[in-house]
Structure formats: C-alpha cells, structure tokens
C-alpha cells in the first residue's frame, strides 16, 4: 500500500508552509523527513495524519483518493502520528490510555484489552505494566505505549515527530529495531521527522528534504551527514570553534543541599558556578537534573542546606527574589512553562519588563517591536504567542531574558530546534556569558554539551559526577557516563 501526496498547499496567513508538495511513500520503507525549523515538515505530517486540513491537494492511499476530517479518520485509513510530546493522559493507567480510540460503545472488555496490550508488548519487548499511571512512565515508555496503541488501531503508516528526544541510547536502539521490524514484517511505512541526522542515517532508507515549504530534494540512503546538511541548508555549516571566556567570582552556590522530587532524593549536593562559566548537565530524563536546576533558581525549596547568590543567602526565598537578583530559569516546555498561550508578544514583554505598578502600553509595544527586530522573530507584537512556530517561540523566550543576567538556568534550551536555530540560541547565550553571566544548562544532545560546556556534570539516579577534563572528553565517553558508568568506576 503506497501513500501519495499530490500538490499539497497550506498557508498560514502570509506564510506558505507547504507549497505544491508531491511525494510518494512506498510500502515497507523508512523515510526521513528533513528540513530546518519552519520548513514545513510538521505541517505536511499534520496534514497527512489528519490534524489539519490542506488548503488544496489530494492524498491517495493505494491509488484511491481519500478525504478525511480528522486524526480519527486518518487512523481509520491506517495513518497514525506519534507526537513529539506523547498525547497521553497522565493520571490514567497504561491500559486506559491504550484503549483510547478503540471502537466500541459504553462497555469495554478490560481483560481482552489487557491481553492485546500484552501481546503487542511481548512482540516488541516493551515493558508496559497495564495498571501503572502513565505519569509514572519514562518518555520512552510513553512513546512505546503510543506505538502499540496506534498499532492496535490498525495503523500501517506511522509518523514519528522527533522520537529520539529525551530517550537513552539503548532505548533508541530498541525503538529503531521495532521500526525496522514494522517496515519489514508488516510492510508498514515509517516516516521519521528529525533534526538528528545521525538518527536519520542510522535508520532511514531514503530521505526527502523540505526548505521554506517546498520539496527541494530526495535522496536514497546511505548518505553522509555533510551531504544531508548541504541538502537542508543549501550549504555546509562551519564547525563551531570553542572559545574560553574569562571566569569571574562565584555567583551561585548550593551548600550541602538536600533536594528531592517525587522519584529521587539527593543529599549533600555542593555546587558552585562562576561568572562567565558554562556548566552543562548531562543525564537521562529524570536523573536529578530537574530538581537540581529548580533548586538553583529557587523554584523548589531545599529540605536542608543553603543556596547563595553572590554572597547573599537566598535559601527559602521565592523565585521572584531570585529573578530580582537576575537568576533566571528557563523551562523545557515553552508553552507549558515560560510562555502564556492567549497573551500577545507585547503582553509578555510588558510582564517581563514593567518595573512599577502601571503598564505603559505604548512603550511596551515599541520595546516589543525593537525586540522582534533584534531577535529576528517571525511574528507581530499583537500576535498571540501560540500562533508562532516553536523556533520563534524560543526566540521570544530569549528576548524575555534580561540583557545582563547573573545566572541563567536553562532546561534543554535548544530542544526540538534545528542546527541553525540552535546555533543562533547559543550565540545569544554566549554573548551574555561573555558579559559575565553564568550559564547552567541541561541537554539531551551530547554534542551540545561537549561543544559549549566549560564543566560537565553527569547525573545518574540522583548521583552527580563531574567530568574531570571537558576539553578531552568525547561524545562517546559522555554516553557511557550517562548510562551510569561512573558508578561502577567509583
């Protein structure tokens, strides 16, 4: 069963997100969809999976033209999409989430559903306990759950949007094995949207490349990274040079801190960061980076110990006081924590910059327009923030940072961004570092950690290990450490 897209057009206002895209996906193939942020990849995939309609164009499945009105109808035609953030319902159990979308009336046969869940899990080697609440699962497990759910619904075309973000190397291997098995055994079509070229190279049989809404190339694999990069950007990116900046005094300190979140407790954490220093936090999701960073910014209270900003004791003070001392936290989820859907860009700027009790809207709007220009945001001051693309939202977040922060504590600052956008973000961050800001950031990209960090802390099950010499470490070594290798060594 082939899937054919014919002359797909989609506009968002003045942006031509998909411009006359025609492409055929053959059964049993794994196809990488490449392109920088805003190239139109997600739009095309959303059209194919029924999340939004195309303005014009047609979709043919096995030569038959189909029209569908939503994801449910697309799934009925065998096309399912795995979102970047799994669309499950946290408080409900694995089994309950598994059954969403299943045909049937008011009653549902629990035993039957559980049997089917277990069948699928066994086949792919997934470990999904039926009665566990989904919020207790790791990202990889939630992904697995979504895959088996879609397969149980009869999906034969599986679209994955950045599936390897936030999962470990082993989990990635497992995922890729499953995808290969699906393609070979079931003749399923796998469409992989990813910025990570090494993933694309490892998995895909062919790639298509979008640029500015148009299909600009297709390539049979294997191909090298530089071939793919030049296809995506129409040129090659020079390697990033590493520049050490001048280190100043200690600006942020944790002393004998006792931290905890729901899953793990961390005792006697001692940490300090100096002005102009970049500290990278490595580790799998949920290894302790989050409570660590939240403690640094005063978002979570310490159970014991102290937080110092410069020489001031900040223990137990609210985040607002940290903000007043220019210690700024940036969360990974942009629209969940950081930006406010329903508020305009000007509203955001006014929130971040109004010092007194009165808001000068004219001034705020002038300021917003200046920032839009300075940060190359594609959007208007009066746009609601959710109307912007992910990359542009990230730019707005950057624009909201103060010019001269004392310390930036950033969760995955380039999550989901393409190479170029990520570089741009780092330009902004490094410019602030050069002016004396300390930067603490977590990342799932080992390359990013090795490239930008002056020091790297590796987190594993709440244990922290500092990499002795960052200039000598490599992505490989870091990969081992993340898996807990330092625990055996010590």
């Amino acid at each position, binding site marked *: 069963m082939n899937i054919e897209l014919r002359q797909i057009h989609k506009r968002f206002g003045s942006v031509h997100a998909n411009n006359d895209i025609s492409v055929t996906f053959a059964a049993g193939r794994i196809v990488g969809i490449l392109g920088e942020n805003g190239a*139109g*990849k997600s739009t095309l995939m959303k059209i194919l999976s029924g999340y*939004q309609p195309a303005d014009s164009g047609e979709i043919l499945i096995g030569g038959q033209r189909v029209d569908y009105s939503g994801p449910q109808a697309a799934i009925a035609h065998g096309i399912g999409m795995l979102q970047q953030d799994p669309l499950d319902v946290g408080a409900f159990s694995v089994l309950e989430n598994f059954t969403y979308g299943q045909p049937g009336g008011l009653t549902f046969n629990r035993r039957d559903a559980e049997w089917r869940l277990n069948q699928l899990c066994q086949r792919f080697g997934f470990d999904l306990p039926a009665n566990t609440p989904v919020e207790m699962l790791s990202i990889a497990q939630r992904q697995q759950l979504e895959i088996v759910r879609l397969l149980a619904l009869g999906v034969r075309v599986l679209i994955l949007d950045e599936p390897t973000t936030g999962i470990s190397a082993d989990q990635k291997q497992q995922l890729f094995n499953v995808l290969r098995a699906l393609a070979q055994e079931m003749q399923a079509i796998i469409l992989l949207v990813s910025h990570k070229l090494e993933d694309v190279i490892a998995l895909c049989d062919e790639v298509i490349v979008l640029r500015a809404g148009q299909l600009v190339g297709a390539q049979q694999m294997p191909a090298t990274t530089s071939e793919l990069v030049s296809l995506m950007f129409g040129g090659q990116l020079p390697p990033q040079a590493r520049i050490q900046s001048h280190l100043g005094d200690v600006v942020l300190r944790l002393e004998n801190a006792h931290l905890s979140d729901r899953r793990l407790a961390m005792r006697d954490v001692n940490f300090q960061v100096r002005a102009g220093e970049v500290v990278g936090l490595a580790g799998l999701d949920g290894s302790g980076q989050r409570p660590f960073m939240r403690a640094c910014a005063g978002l979570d209270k310490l159970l014991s110990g102290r937080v110092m900003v410069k020489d001031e004791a900040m223990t137990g003070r609210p985040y607002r006081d940290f903000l007043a001392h220019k210690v700024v936290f940036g969360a990974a989820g942009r629209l969940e924590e*950081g*930006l406010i859907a*329903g*508020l305009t860009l000007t509203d955001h700027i006014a929130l971040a910059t109004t010092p007194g009790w*009165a808001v000068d809207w004219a001034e705020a709007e002038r300021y917003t327009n200046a920032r839009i220009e300075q940060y190359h945001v594609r959007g208007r001051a009066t746009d609601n923030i959710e109307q912007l*693309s992910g990359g542009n939202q990230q730019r707005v977040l950057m624009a909201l940072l103060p010019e001269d922060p004392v310390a930036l504590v950033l969760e995955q600052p380039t999550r989901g961004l393409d190479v170029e956008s990520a570089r741009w973000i780092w330009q902004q961050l490094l410019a602030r570092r050069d002016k004396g800001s300390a930067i603490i950031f977590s990342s799932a990209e080992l390359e990013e950690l090795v490239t930008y960090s002056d020091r790297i802390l590796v987190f594993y099950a709440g244990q922290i290990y500092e990499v002795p010499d960052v200039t000598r470490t490599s992505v490989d070594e870091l990969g081992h450490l993340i898996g807990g290798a330092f625990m055996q060594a010590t």
Partner: protein
Amino acid sequence: MKRTATNLFFLALPLLLGVIVVAILIVLVVPPNTTLGDVLQAFWNGAFRNLRRFSGVLVFWIPLTLVGIGLVITFRAGLWNIGVEGQMTLGGLFAAGLAFMLGEGSPLVIIPLCIFGAMLGGALWASVAAFLKVRFGVSEIFSGVALNAIANQITLQLIAGPWKPGDSDKAQYSRPVPDAARLLGVSQDFNVSVVGLVVTIVAVVLVLLVLARTRWGLNLKAVGKNPRSALLLGVPTTITAFSALMVCGALAGIAGSQRILFTYGDVRGQFAGGIGFLGLLVVLLISARGVWVPLIAFLFAIMLNGGTQLQFLNLDSSLTGVLQGALVLAVLLANGLRDRLRKPKQAKG
C-alpha cells in the same frame, strides 16, 4: 472591510442566537391568546412605564453591577468565585453590625464607615476561600459553596440572637438599621440611592482602568491563563490569586451593604437574594469582558423587574429566571459554535 464584517458577525452571533432561543421559549410557554409582543410589552412596562419602575431597575442594577465587575477580576485570574454570594452576605452583615454599633450620628461619618466595613467583611470572607486555595489547594468552587451556606447560618443566628427586633424569638427580620446608616432615595418617585449609584460607577471605571493599565491587571491575566509560566515571568502568583479574591469580595461586600442599608433597612434571611449567582451568569455571558458588565447587568435588571408584570399575563414571574438561564446557556453554546466555525489560528511548524 470584509474581515471587519465577519468579525462583527461572529461577535453578534452568540447574542443573536440567545435572543432567538429566548423568543422561542416565550412563544412555547405563553397562553394561547397572548403573543410574544405582549410579553415584551410586559417587560417594557415593568421596567420603563414610569420613573418609579425605572428606579426599581436601577436599584437592582447597582448590586448586580458591583458583583459583576468584581467577578470579572476573579474570572480574569482563572478563579470561579462561587462564594461571591456569601461575600455579599458578610459585607451586608458587617455594614449592619457597624450601623448597630455606631447608633445615631452624622450620616456623613457613619455611611462611609459602614460601606468600608462592608468591603472589609466581603474581603475577609473571600480571604477564607483564598487561604484554603493557596495554602491547601482547595478549589474555590467547593469552599465557596460551603462558605455561602455558613454565611446564611450566621445571618439567621444574628437575626435570632443579638439583632432580634424585640423579645420575640421567631423574628423574620432583625430590628431596623439606625436611620443614620440608611441610604436614601432621591425622591419618592426616583427611589434610587445616589451614593450607591456613584459608588458603582466609580467602581466600574476603577476596575476597568486597573485591569487595562496596571501590572496587577496584567498579572491577573497571566495567572489566569498559565500560572506556571506566570511564575517564571516574575508574577507573584499566590499574591495575585489571593488579592483577586479579596478585591472581588470587597466589591461584593459593597453590593451586600446596598441590600441592607438601602433596599431592606434591616437584616433578613437570604438578603443577598441570589444576586451573586446572577452576577456569575452576567460574567459568563460576556466571557469576563468588563466593559459589558454595566449593560448586561442592566438587561438582567430589566428582565427581573419586567418579570413582576408577567403575572398579569397569567405567567409565573419565575419565568424570568428560566429565560435568563436559557439566555446564558444559548450564548455559551453559540460561543463554542463560533469557535468551531471560525477557522482556528494555528501555529505553523
């Protein structure tokens, strides 16, 4: 041009639909020999036949607008302040208590004190819900329902106890509020309190200005839409939610004091009269857009006053309540319909 026209259409659609539904309802329930026109005539007569009827509308408009504009604040902050009825009640009780305590004296001193006390009472009652919310995470909806019931009990206890009129143990009303604390109408025919009118208008203007022009107004909006992000953007989320409830409580308190110091002149059971709940309907109807509160409150007041005339058409005056409920439901439905019809603005990716 075309866009403005479409926007206008979408703006008017819910109201239009609401009116149609209400009209159909009326046609369905009226006796065979009356027409829709008769009913409208009755409403009109009830509200505008003469100055006295019109002042009746205004007397109702004052507390409803105060409560409505207060609720706009809490809605803005994402809070469902069901407890507003109880906040009205406590405001009224504080005003009455102060009036009884102060006794006779200069109204110029006593009335402002009573109104101030009413604000304090309403705000205090709201702060109970606010405290439960921010400290223990108790939904303001549930605590509000409970606090409303408690406020009623307190009222009844006061009427039966310290404030009872004479030696009777089965009083329906308290003894009358001292004259010095009473708000007076302009004249026999135009029986509306100028103080109430002025306070209401000032409150509306102030709230609208504060919402549009201050950091606090912006904070409310941020907290209402996404408290987690708001916190990271430097908004004191706890204080914002707390203060939103307190300010709403204070405004509801003034509304309550109007019921005691002007409308009844004594304290009686359920003296808030469901105006708090009606205020919730007003705010739902306009999706918390503050400028519309005075107008919609006015419409509601007309409907309520007109409702008293329905008996002459052999209709029960409780039909008014049904119509108001139907109107709100229809408008909410139409809002949802509009959002589906209007092409959603989507982020591109």
